[in-house]
Structure formats: structure tokens, C-alpha cells
């Protein structure tokens, strides 16, 4: 079996067990909120809540640089810290955090393969007391944001019109077709259902095994290759709010080594609310069917 393009960004649960007390390692459970963390977490792990700590809570955006630096410093993370991220939902929000840490230039950030699910299934230790890290003695200094990892609306509109990029819609088939406007049971955040015309449907979960770990490289290449992903064309991943697509972005960029892949975090919540934006409805077609 061939190895991932960047195997150094993945650690397994055994590695985390062995390194939770390392001074230079900070384990972070990332989720939409901290409810799961509060039930029990990897010993020594801290928690980041996506909805309050990893987003600008006024403007719809990632954290401004100063707030990102403050979060890292308060989390006891300096520029040389090995940050290990994990979370529920097969690491959705961990992948979002990974994406943001890379935008701000953090060097050593890794994801625990299998996330919270695998940790629980293996019966590994859980701590129910929140970890309170000492702030880093050295204030964290983020790099200038690297927006080459991110797609904004005009870039997606241009790519859609010119068919100059492979658009990968990672939502469920029912969201893709327009049957539902949001994941079942969650609030509807758009006015129209469907997908960006020309997008390919590859639900994020296709990249994962049943135990939550990532599939091997050859399987990933088959799955995404069949939908037109290659090194020859830019790839834009999107979902509803950008967290599932950051998972796919991670798979494409770090596991498969696709050079030109970006996460469109505006995603369907942006596109599906735009006046006049083209929308396509219906189930996914196979490549060649248009």
C-alpha cells in the first residue's frame, strides 16, 4: 500500500496516548461546541468550540489574526508546539481548525486519525475535568494569512462559469439534489436547495473507514479520481458552512497531495442565498454525463 503524501500530519490514538504529557505537545478536542468534551476527553486535552472560538462571532469569517494569536497563546501554544487536533463527526471541526492553523502558518499541526469515535471505541482513558492550560510564556505570532488555501465567492463564480476548476460538493446526496436544505434535524440556512452547476458529488464520509480513520491512499485516489480530481485542474471543495469541506480539503491536500485545492467556506450557506446565482437540482450524474 502506498503512503499518504504527507503522513506526518496524521497520528494514531496510540501515539496520542504516549505523548499526552509531552511539554511540546498540545492536544485539542475541536467540535461545534464543547458538549462532547465535557462528557470526557483525552487526558490533558483542551477544548475549542468552533461556534465561539474558531470563528469571528460578528462578521462571518475565520478568526482575525489578533484573535487567533490570543487563542493560541491562551491555549499554551507557541510557534514551535506540536498541535494535535481531534474531534467528533470523524474530525470535521478538527479539520476546520487544521485549515485555519495552516492559513495562519502554524508549522506542526496534526490530526488524530479516527478522532473521538476511535478513542471511545478502543476504551482509552477519558478525563472529565477540563484542562486549564497555562498561557504560553511567549506570545504567539501568526504569519500573514495564506488565503491561497481558501476560495472566496468571486473565485468560485468565475470557476463555475469558465469550468476552470473541479467543484466538489461534499454534502449528502439529499442536500446535493435539493431534496433537503440542511442536514436532517439541523436548521435550514439557505433559501434554495441544490448545488453549484457542474459540481461533482463526493460526500465527505467516502474518505473514511467505519472506525473513523481515513481510507488508504489507493482507495482515496479511486474515489476522487473518478470524479475528475487530478493535479491538472484546480479543485474547490464546498459543503454547507465549510467544515465538512475542510475535511475533504485535508484529504485531498495532505493525504493525496493535490497541489491546488481550496476550501470554499462560504459554501452553500452563501451560494444558496445569493440572488441570481445559478443552481442545479437533481441527483449526481456520473462523469461524462455533464
Amino acid at each position: 500500500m502506498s503512503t499518504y503524501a504527507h503522513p506526518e500530519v496524521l497520528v494514531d490514538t496510540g501515539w496520542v496516548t504516549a505523548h499526552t504529557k509531552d511539554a511540546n505537545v498540545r492536544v485539542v478536542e475541536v467540535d461545534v461546541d464543547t458538549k462532547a468534551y465535557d462528557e470526557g476527553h483525552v487526558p490533558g486535552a483542551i477544548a475549542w468550540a468552533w461556534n465561539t472560538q474558531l470563528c469571528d462571532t460578528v462578521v462571518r469569517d475565520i478568526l482575525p489574526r489578533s484573535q487567533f494569536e490570543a487563542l493560541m497563546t491562551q491555549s499554551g501554544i507557541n510557534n514551535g508546539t506540536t498541535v494535535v487536533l481531534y474531534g467528533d463527526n470523524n474530525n470535521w471541526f478538527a479539520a476546520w481548525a487544521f485549515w485555519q492553523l495552516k492559513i495562519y502558518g502554524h508549522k506542526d499541526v496534526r490530526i488524530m486519525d479516527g478522532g473521538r469515535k476511535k478513542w471511545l471505541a478502543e476504551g482509552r482513558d477519558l478525563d472529565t475535568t477540563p484542562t486549564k492550560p497555562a498561557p504560553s510564556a511567549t506570545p504567539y505570532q501568526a504569519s500573514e494569512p495564506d488565503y491561497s488555501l481558501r476560495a472566496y465567492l468571486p473565485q468560485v463564480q468565475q470557476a463555475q462559469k469558465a469550468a476552470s476548476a473541479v467543484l466538489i460538493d461534499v454534502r449528502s446526496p439529499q442536500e446535493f439534489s435539493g431534496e433537503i436544505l440542511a442536514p436532517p434535524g439541523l436548521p435550514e440556512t439557505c433559501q434554495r436547495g441544490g448545488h453549484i452547476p457542474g459540481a461533482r458529488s463526493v460526500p465527505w464520509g467516502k474518505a473514511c473507514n467505519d472506525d473513523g480513520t481515513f481510507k488508504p491512499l489507493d482507495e482515496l485516489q479511486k474515489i476522487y479520481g473518478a470524479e475528475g480530481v487530478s493535479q491538472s485542474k484546480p479543485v474547490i471543495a464546498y459543503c454547507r458552512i465549510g467544515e465538512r469541506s475542510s475535511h475533504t480539503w485535508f484529504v485531498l491536500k495532505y493525504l493525496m497531495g493535490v497541489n491546488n485545492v481550496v476550501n470554499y467556506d462560504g459554501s452553500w450557506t452563501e451560494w444558496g442565498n445569493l440572488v441570481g446565482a445559478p443552481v442545479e437540482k437533481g441527483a449526481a450524474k456520473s462523469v461524462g454525463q455533464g
Partner: protein
Amino acid sequence: MKPEHFSERKVDVDGWQVNLTTYQLGDKWHTKADNVSPGAALVRIVADTREAAESLALARAKKLLSRTQRRL
């Protein structure tokens, strides 16, 4: 503490697939109900027994899922 008796099972709730993940931690049972596709957590319940945790999780999931409209 170590989680014990971890289990997952899929249940149909009014035509929606729901995944129930349950484990015991100490003397409490934890259940999460997610919506399978895409896998977002709908509810998390802590109760004294597996049965209580799962039935409460399913009841709350059912209520949330009833708000989702099929449009095609």
C-alpha cells in the same frame, strides 16, 4: 476512567436514518444520536441506563427531524 460497552447502531426514525452511539463511563451511560448522512450530532444524552439514554436520545432526535422538510 475508561469508556466501556461502546456500541453503534442505526435506527430508522420516520424515514430518516439515525446513528446511535452509546458507551458507559463510570455509572452513567452516554448516547449521541447523529443523522448518519452527513453525520452531525443531533443530541447528546446522559442517563443511568443504556435504555434510558437511547430512548431519550431517539425521542429528541425524532422531534428535531420532524422539522426537516423534503422538497423534491
